[in-house]
């Protein structure tokens, strides 16, 4: 009964979405206030209906209702409650329903909190948002219905992939989707602006908080995913350039570029066409990611769909969205004139460089991800594009990004002085030099690439701090003056400081943990010891252990340094029955200097075990840095200008009908 209610709510949601996608659009065009006014209640009702559908599916999972096929295939009565709930989106149908839920939540948020938007513009945004919802609701209803019944109901379910039964991964998809789908807001704002034929500073102010929120979620989602890979896959790696990882990384790169170019639109009324295009491309990449993961074009842990009908549907939808929006762009964009001029060396110039490099990096990842598919389709030849390709092409592109991102915020708008900006960063320059020298002394035997790498990270952190201090006139003015400036300064500038410093921490974490990692792989008998860098790992033996829905072997290692015990580490090797699968639970001890990482593997049969140890210096900086970036985004989001919103454009009411006229006038 509950499942049928969910199904019914979803059908109703599709009908509401169809109305919301058409009526307000026509109303805004014709200037009919009643039709325009329909957008808000429609978005809220649609949101409530999808929430009912999602709630119904969640209920079926929580009560282990195995008469629902989706629950029977992906859940099991012996699973802990957390994984019963996360099981809702741990499968193809449920994850699409989550996608849809987040889409309509964003639409509902615009309807409820978008009071500062002019009504016709808001109506158009919500209509575009509803068009996307029509596509995805149909996709769920016609190809991936999670409410299908199974008769007779089996006694128990088939269980959730054990790799996914993990707290890190339980929350990874919701964050990732909040990011992915959040970019649909940027897309809807861009398309609505194209329909109106008007992009200005106010538009940039409206779109920026939504993009920023999506970016924060996506950063968090990617960070959680890599952290999960690090401790769950048991090989100490955290980024594999897996096509599925790339699918989430491409929108992140494009979204990061979008955040920065929107600043230029807001402050200088320039780069308008490009920003609108970037908003369209960012969401298109999110859709492409969904296609790659959901269609089964790529086979991996993440791909649940094997039915070709699904792939064809989502590909058709992808093409419709991209072709439709780009056609509209081609028609409308030439009419939009850019405003402010600027010299190549200026804040704008720095942001253009950021966009150039991030887009190239994004295109590189896209090329590397799709090339094997194209080559296979065209010639039948199979190749693999793996980490070495991405490290060789993506890495060098990032170096100028990092060099420039420290200088950019120091440059004034319109026309800057590069030498002057670098001179004002003298603390950062000296910090980077000192960082390189210290690294040289501590790690004189290489690898030599790591030394400038550390210098780069230190440069970014120091320059971000120095830029913040410069803004406060810290140490150059009386402390009272600095405090007064702190009170008055804009939050978004502090967001930049935090996010850029966080990126510097990520670099240091990546460089240090890959350059100076110690790894040891061996067979050990209980009582034996193994040296890992300055640490001694003593194997105390391994014992069997029963978990709620798995059997495990737990190894115990006593770790000492200079004869003093520093940790007892207990990694596990688990075997699940439903479905049968082995997973590794690495034991990780995080200290100030980095992580110690221990894995217990297979028994050799004669009382010994294969074991692996790693010492990964500074690897935790990767995740601390990611959190700093998210924090920076959140600080920026609290900026007063975004909360109060830009004041309505001059002549607000007359504009709905006047939009077409102003287009013609241009």
């Amino acid at each position, binding site marked *: 009964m509950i499942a049928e209610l969910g199904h019914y709510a979803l059908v109703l949601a599709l009908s509401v979405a169809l109305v919301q996608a058409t009526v307000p659009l026509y109303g805004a065009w014709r200037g009919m206030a009643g039709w325009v006014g329909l957008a808000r209640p429609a978005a809220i009702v649609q949101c409530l209906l999808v929430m009912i559908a999602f709630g119904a599916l969640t209920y079926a999972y929580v009560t282990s209702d195995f008469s629902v096929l989706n629950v029977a295939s992906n859940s099991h009565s012996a699973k802990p409650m957390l994984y019963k709930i996360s099981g809702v989106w741990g499968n193809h149908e449920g994850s699409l329903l989550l996608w849809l839920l987040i889409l309509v939540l964003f639409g509902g948020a615009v309807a409820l909190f978008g009071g500062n938007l002019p009504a016709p513009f808001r109506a158009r945004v919500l209509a575009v948002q509803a068009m996307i919802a029509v596509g995805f609701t149909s996709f769920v209803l016609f190809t991936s219905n999670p409410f299908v019944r199974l008769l007779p109901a089996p006694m128990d379910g088939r269980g959730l992939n054990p790799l996914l039964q993990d707290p890190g991964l339980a929350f990874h998809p919701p964050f990732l989707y909040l990011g992915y789908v959040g970019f649909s807001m940027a897309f809807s704002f861009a398309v609505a602006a194209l329909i109106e034929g008007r992009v200005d500073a106010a538009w940039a102010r409206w779109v920026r908080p939504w993009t920023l929120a999506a970016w924060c979620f996506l950063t968090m989602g990617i960070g959680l995913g890599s952290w999960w890979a690090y401790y769950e*896959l*048991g*090989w100490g*790696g955290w980024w*594999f*350039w*897996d*096509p*599925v990882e790339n699918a989430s990384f491409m929108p992140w790169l494009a979204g990061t570029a979008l955040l920065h170019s929107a600043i230029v639109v807001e402050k200088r009324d320039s780069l308008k066409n490009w920003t609108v295009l970037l908003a369209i491309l960012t969401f298109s990449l999110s859709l492409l990611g969904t296609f790659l993961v959901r269609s089964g074009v*790529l*086979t*991996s*842990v993440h791909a649940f769909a094997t039915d070709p009908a699904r792939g064809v549907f989502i590909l058709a939808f992808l093409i419709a969205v991209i072709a439709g929006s780009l056609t509209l762009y081609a028609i409308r964009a030439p009419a939009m004139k*850019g405003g402010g*001029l600027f010299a*190549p060396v200026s804040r704008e110039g720095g942001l*253009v460089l950021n966009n*150039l490099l991030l*887009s*190239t990096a994004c*295109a*590189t990842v896209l*090329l*590397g991800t799709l*090339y094997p598919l194209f*080559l296979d389709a065209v*010639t039948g*030849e*199979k*190749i*693999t*594009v*793996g*980490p*070495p*390709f991405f490290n060789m*092409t993506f890495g060098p*592109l990032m170096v100028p990004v990092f060099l420039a991102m420290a200088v950019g915020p120091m440059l004034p708008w319109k026309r800057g002085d590069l030498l002057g900006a670098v001179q004002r960063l003298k603390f950062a320059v000296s910090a980077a030099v000192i960082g390189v020298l210290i690294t040289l002394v501590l790690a004189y035997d290489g690898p030599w690439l790591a030394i400038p790498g550390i210098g780069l990270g230190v440069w970014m952190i120091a320059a971000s701090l120095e830029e913040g201090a410069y803004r406060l006139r810290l140490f150059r003015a009386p402390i009272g003056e600095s405090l007064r400036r702190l009170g008055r300064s804009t939050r978004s500038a502090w967001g930049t400081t935090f996010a850029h410093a966080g990126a510097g921490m990520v670099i240091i974490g990546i460089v240090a943990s890959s350059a100076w990692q110690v790894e040891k*792989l*061996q*067979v050990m008998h209980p009582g034996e010891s193994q040296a890992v860098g300055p640490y001694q790992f003593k194997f105390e033996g391994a014992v069997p252990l029963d978990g709620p829905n798995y059997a495990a072997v737990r190894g115990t290692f006593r770790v000492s340094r200079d004869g003093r015990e520093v940790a007892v580490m207990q990694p596990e090797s688990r075997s699940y029955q439903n479905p049968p699968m*082995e997973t*590794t639970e690495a034991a990780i001890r995080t200290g100030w200097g980095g992580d110690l990482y221990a894995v217990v*593997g*297979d*028994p*050799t*049969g*004669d009382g010994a075990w*294969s074991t692996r140890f790693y010492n990964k210096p500074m690897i935790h900086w990767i995740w601390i840095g990611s959190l700093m970036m998210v924090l920076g985004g959140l600080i920026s989001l609290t900026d007063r200008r975004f909360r109060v919103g830009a004041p309505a454009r001059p002549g607000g009411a007359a504009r709905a009908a006047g939009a077409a006229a102003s287009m013609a006038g241009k």
Partner: protein
Amino acid sequence: MLMALLRRLVFAFCLASLITPAWAVAVDTPLADPVLEARARAIHKQLRCLVCQNQSIEDSNAGLARDLRILVRDRIAAGDSDKAAIGYIVERYGDWVLLQPPMKGRTVLLWLGPLLFLLLAMGLIFLWYRRRSGSTAAAVAAAPLSADEQARLKALLDDREQT
């Protein structure tokens, strides 16, 4: 002496009857020589796990990856050079097994793509910038501020100086 003979006999027996002790294939046993082991590990990082997504056999828990690891160790222990050991695997599984695709006719676009994109984007930015500064500068020069605008500008500037 006797023990050594006995051990050799047991070993010969195992070989003859093809009963390899189970642990020899089941577990990743590193090679005794650390130099050889380091070479084998470096090769492991360049080969993909056949049943995973873009994971090297070094980074995979899959049984097939383990078998390949052991195969590489066997080749290295048998005296193969790195190139020969990789060639041995590629001969059986094709270029697909290499995580770094080889540079050849069909992958030229892949390897040069990023550079081409960068140059194209730089060219477009250059053209856009030149055209825009040309046209806008001309427009600005053609339309000097009117008296009314001059007055507003002055008022705005005065206002700003006071705050």
